[in-house]
């Protein structure tokens, strides 16, 4: 069983994300675990955003890969807790995102990434004013400049915002800290 679980982990882990195919389900932390559940393997996936349309496509891709590789008895289950965070995206995946033209997310843990989080950490009653002005800005994934401006809070997918580099003038996607 252990060998089967490891084989499944390897198989599912390298499935590319349907929206950002340079990174895999393992890279993004969407594949949480592969476990022995009453004698059958179970693949545990976690959704990114609640409304992300890719969630169902990912589950279908995983099912297809399992069936094609002879793991028809494996179950695919969704787990919500702990809630997915971009902090699970590893260094290697961040490099791949940058090379693909997407600025990787700032770290959420420790230094809270958004003003709303800082307010929440400091206490419920803390007021929140124009927080976008105080958010950390990504560096341009092409030229590395920190001189960038926000164009749109949402980009080509729910998980990305749209930015423009003021040094090289190229627009780019920013994977939002979440």
């Amino acid at each position, binding site marked *: 069983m252990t060998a089967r679980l490891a084989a499944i982990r390897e198989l599912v882990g390298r499935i590319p994300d349907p929206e950002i195919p340079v990174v895999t389900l393992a890279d993004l932390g969407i594949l949480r675990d592969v476990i022995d559940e009453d004698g059958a393997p179970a693949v545990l996936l976690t959704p990114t955003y609640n*409304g992300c349309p890719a969630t169902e496509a990912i589950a279908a891709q995983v099912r297809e890969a399992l069936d094609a590789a002879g793991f028809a008895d494996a179950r695919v289950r969704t787990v*919500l807790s702990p809630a997915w965070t971009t902090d699970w995206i590893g260094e290697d995946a961040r490099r791949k995102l940058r090379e693909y033209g997407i600025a990787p997310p700032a770290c959420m843990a420790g230094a809270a990434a*958004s003003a709303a*989080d800082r307010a*929440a950490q400091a206490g419920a009653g803390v007021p929140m*004013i124009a927080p976008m002005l105080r958010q950390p800005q990504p560096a341009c994934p092409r030229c590395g400049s920190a001189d960038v401006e926000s164009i749109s*809070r*949402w980009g080509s997918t729910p998980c990305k915002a*749209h930015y423009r580099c003021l040094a090289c003038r190229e627009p780019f996607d920013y994977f939002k800290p979440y």
Partner: protein
Amino acid sequence: MDSQGEPTMERAQQIEYLLRLADSPLVLAHRLSQWCGHGPVLEEDLALANISLDLLGQARLLYQHAAALAGGDASEDRYAYFRDVPEFGNFTMLELPNSGVASAGAGDPDYAFTIVRNAMYAAWQVELWQRLTDSSDAQLAAIAAKSLKEARYHLEHAADWMIRFGDGTDESHARAQRALDSLVPYASEWFVPDALDAEACAAGVGIDCAAIRSPWLERMHTIAGEATLRWPGDSEFCSTGKLGRHSEHLGYLLTEMQSVARAHPDAAW
């Protein structure tokens, strides 16, 4: 996966509480989806479509959880598409047309109205989800932890625009003020517990909805102040959407939203 833990309130009551929590994001998601292709600028069109998707995702998780508790032929689609107006427990504010309270559903959609409504509701959701992360219903707590991140982002978006409108031109200020004046009375029901709220709170499943009024008001006062908007005085009015007694607008909304599913009741999507 549904780790429900020990039942701490009557199952039927718990399901009703979950449906009430789900109906509000579903109805607002539908209202926001009506902006799709009609947003004032492309970036805002994208923003509202994505906020709508987030809210729809929240509603789906809650309906799925309720359906798992109910068993039988209960499903998210049955809850969303095959219940009628009195069975919906969404807040009345969220069913109001995008054109505003006084428009009776006619007239152009008003972006100030949408933004102020979103700010008020997102600020309420931040308080709600924060507290529900401690719910004795483990699945509800997991849904809350995910949804909290989204609500904060929605609040940032709406608060920024509310400030820009309020502290903008005479026209944008007047429209934001009009939206605020007309919407604030509809928030009253958010903070007045009924028997179901009280039961859910006592069981540790739900929140004390009266207790979040003060942090909500403080946050909204701050945003309104920054936006140079005047917070309206108290009103006697208290809407009754969560009790199933709705404005005239919900029927039209449901008719549109449910028409395809009802025309093809056995279709598989």
